[in-house]
C-alpha cells in the first residue's frame, strides 16, 4: 500500500517536473541562440535601429520596428476590450439576474474558444472592408482592424476575471453600501470596483500579455511589413508574425537570419514574463490585504 502511494506521488512529481523542464529548456535555447546572435549584431543596434530587414540583402536589425507593431496592435486591442469587458463584468455582477448571468458568462467565454485563425480571417475580409467604407485611405493590411478583432477576442479575459474579482468582494461591503442608501451605480463604481481593483488590474495585465503574444490574427490581417510607426492605418509586422514568417521556411538553419527569431522570441518572452510577474505580484498583495 505504501509503495503504491509512493509510486503515485512519484508520477505526480514527474508530471510537475516535465512542465518545469520544458520551460527551462525553452529559456535555455532562447538564451543560447540569442547570445550567438548578439555576437554578430550589437545590442545597441538591436535596441536603437528603427529598421528591421534581416531577410533582405541590406540588413538592419532594429527590433523597435517589430516592438512598435506589437504594441500598437495590443494597445488597440486593450482600448476595445477594457471598456467593453469591464462594463460586461459590472453588468453581470450588479445588474443581471442570477439565471441570466449563469447563461451569459459561458457564452461570452466561447469568444475565447474561437480559433484565432478564424478571427484573423474575419478581420481581413469583413472588418477591414467595413472600416474602409468609413475611412477610404485605410490599407488592406493594417493594425487597426487586427487590433479591434483581437480586442473582441480578449473581452472574456477581462470580463470573466474581473467578474470573478467582483464576485470575491465580501458581500458585507455590497450590503453596507446598499444600506447606506447608495444606488446600484454608486455601489458598483464607488465600492465594488475599487475593492476589486487589484483583481481587475490582474485581468487587464493578463489580457495585455495575451494580446502581445497573439499570432494568427496579426499575421493574417496586420500585414508583413516591419515598420517603426504608430499609424494604425498602414501594415505592420509584430514580433510573432515575424517569427511565423521565418520559421515557415525562409531562412536556412544556423544562419544569422535564423537566429533573429530567437532574439525576437527572447524579447517577446521578456515582455510577457514581466507582465505575468507583475500580475502575480499584484495578486499576492491583494490576497494579503483581504485575509
Amino acid at each position, binding site marked *: 500500500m505504501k509503495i503504491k502511494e509512493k509510486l503515485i506521488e512519484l508520477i505526480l512529481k514527474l508530471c510537475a517536473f516535465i512542465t518545469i523542464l520544458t520551460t527551462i529548456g525553452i529559456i535555455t535555447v532562447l538564451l543560447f541562440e540569442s547570445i550567438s546572435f548578439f555576437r554578430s549584431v550589437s545590442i545597441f543596434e538591436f535596441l536603437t535601429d528603427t529598421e528591421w530587414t534581416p531577410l533582405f540583402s541590406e540588413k538592419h536589425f532594429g527590433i523597435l520596428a517589430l516592438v512598435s507593431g506589437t504594441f500598437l496592435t495590443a494597445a488597440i486591442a486593450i482600448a476595445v476590450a477594457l471598456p467593453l469587458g469591464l462594463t460586461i463584468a459590472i453588468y453581470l455582477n450588479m445588474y443581471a439576474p442570477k439565471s441570466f448571468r449563469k447563461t451569459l458568462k459561458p457564452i461570452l467565454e466561447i469568444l475565447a474558444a474561437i480559433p484565432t485563425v478564424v478571427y484573423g480571417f474575419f478581420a481581413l475580409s469583413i472588418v477591414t472592408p467595413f472600416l474602409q467604407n468609413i475611412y477610404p485611405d485605410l*490599407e488592406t493590411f493594417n493594425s487597426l482592424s487586427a487590433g479591434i478583432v483581437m480586442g473582441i477576442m480578449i473581452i472574456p479575459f477581462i470580463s470573466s476575471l474581473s467578474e470573478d474579482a467582483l464576485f470575491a468582494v465580501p458581500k458585507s461591503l455590497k450590503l453596507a453600501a446598499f444600506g447606506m442608501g447608495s444606488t446600484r451605480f454608486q455601489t458598483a463604481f464607488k465600492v465594488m470596483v475599487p475593492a476589486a481593483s487589484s483583481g481587475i488590474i490582474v485581468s487587464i495585465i493578463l489580457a495585455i500579455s495575451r494580446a502581445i503574444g497573439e499570432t494568427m490574427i496579426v499575421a493574417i490581417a496586420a500585414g508583413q511589413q516591419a515598420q517603426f510607426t504608430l499609424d494604425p492605418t498602414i*501594415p505592420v509586422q509584430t514580433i510573432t508574425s515575424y517569427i511565423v514568417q521565418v520559421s515557415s521556411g525562409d531562412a536556412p538553419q544556423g544562419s544569422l537570419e535564423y537566429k533573429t527569431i530567437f532574439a525576437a522570441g527572447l524579447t517577446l518572452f521578456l515582455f510577457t514574463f514581466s507582465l505575468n510577474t507583475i500580475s502575480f505580484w499584484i495578486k499576492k498583495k491583494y490576497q494579503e490585504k483581504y485575509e
Partner: protein
Amino acid sequence: MKRVLFIAVLAFTMIACGNKKGQDKGLTGSISIDGSGTVFPVSEAVAEEFLKVEPNVKVTVGESGTGGGFKKFATGVTDISDASREIKEEEIALCKENGIEYIQLTVALDGITVVVNKDNTWAKTMTTEELKKLWEPNSTVKKWSDIRAEWPNEEIHLYGPNTSHGTYDFFTEVIMGKSGASRTDYNAVSDYNVAVQGIENDVNALGYFGLSYYEENKEKLNAVGIDNGNGAVLPSLETVASNEYAPLSRSLFIFVNKKSAQRPEVEKFVNFYLENAPKLSKEVGYVPMPQSGYEKQKAAFSKVLTK
C-alpha cells in the same frame, strides 16, 4: 438469424475486397513536393489529375518558396522541388553535402506580371527603368507622382513576394541587375493570394507575381505593359512563348531527387507530369513549351532511370 446475415455480409465484403485487390495493380506510396509558390498551381493540378490515375499514391504539394523548397530538398525531406529560378551555388553545395543527386526538368514558361488595381486609370505601361527606380534598394519613390510627374500625388502601396521566393530572386536580378537587391518597405507576402487580395482592395497598390495569379484574377486586377525600349508589351500566353515579353519571361522547373526517381510511383508521376504539363500549365495560366521541349525533358528523365 441476424448473426447469420451479419456473417454473410462480412464474408461477401471480404470476397469483394479480395477480388478488387487481385485485379488492381495500382501503385502505392507517397510523393512529397515543395518549393516555388509560382510552380505550385501546376504541380497541384498535376497531382490532382494523377490521383485519378493512381488513387493509392499520396502526393503532397507545399509552397514555401523556391528557396524554402530547396532547403528541404537538399536534406532529402522532399522528393521533388518546384523552382521558379535556377538552383543557386550554395544550394548545390548543400545537396552535395547530403549526397542528394537530382535532375532538373523544365515544365513551363512564365512571365512575371506587374499588376495594379482595376480602378487604376493611369499606370497602363511602365518602362524597366521606372520599375528599377521603384523597386531598387533605398528607393525614394513614395508616391505615384515620383515615378511619373503626371501620375497622382498619392502614396503608392507595394506588394511583392518575400525573400524565399524564386520570383523575388528573378525579378530583382532582371530589373536591378543583382539578385536579392530590393527596397524593403513593401508588403512581403509568402502567399500570392494575399497580394491579390491587397491589390484588389486598394486603388494605390502595385505588385508583381507569376502570370498565372494574374490570369486567375483577371477580373479583379490590371496588368501593366512592360516597356524594355521596344514599346510596351502586355504579358500573355503568346508574348511569353515568343519571348516578346522581355525581360520578365522565364522558365519554371521541377527538380527530382534521383534516388526518389527509382521508386515506381515517383517515376510514373514525373512522366505523367511531363505528359500533362502542356495542358495543365495552360489551364492554370502559364505558357507551355513547344511539344519538342517536353520530349527532350522526358528523354533526359528516362536516361536518369536507366543509369
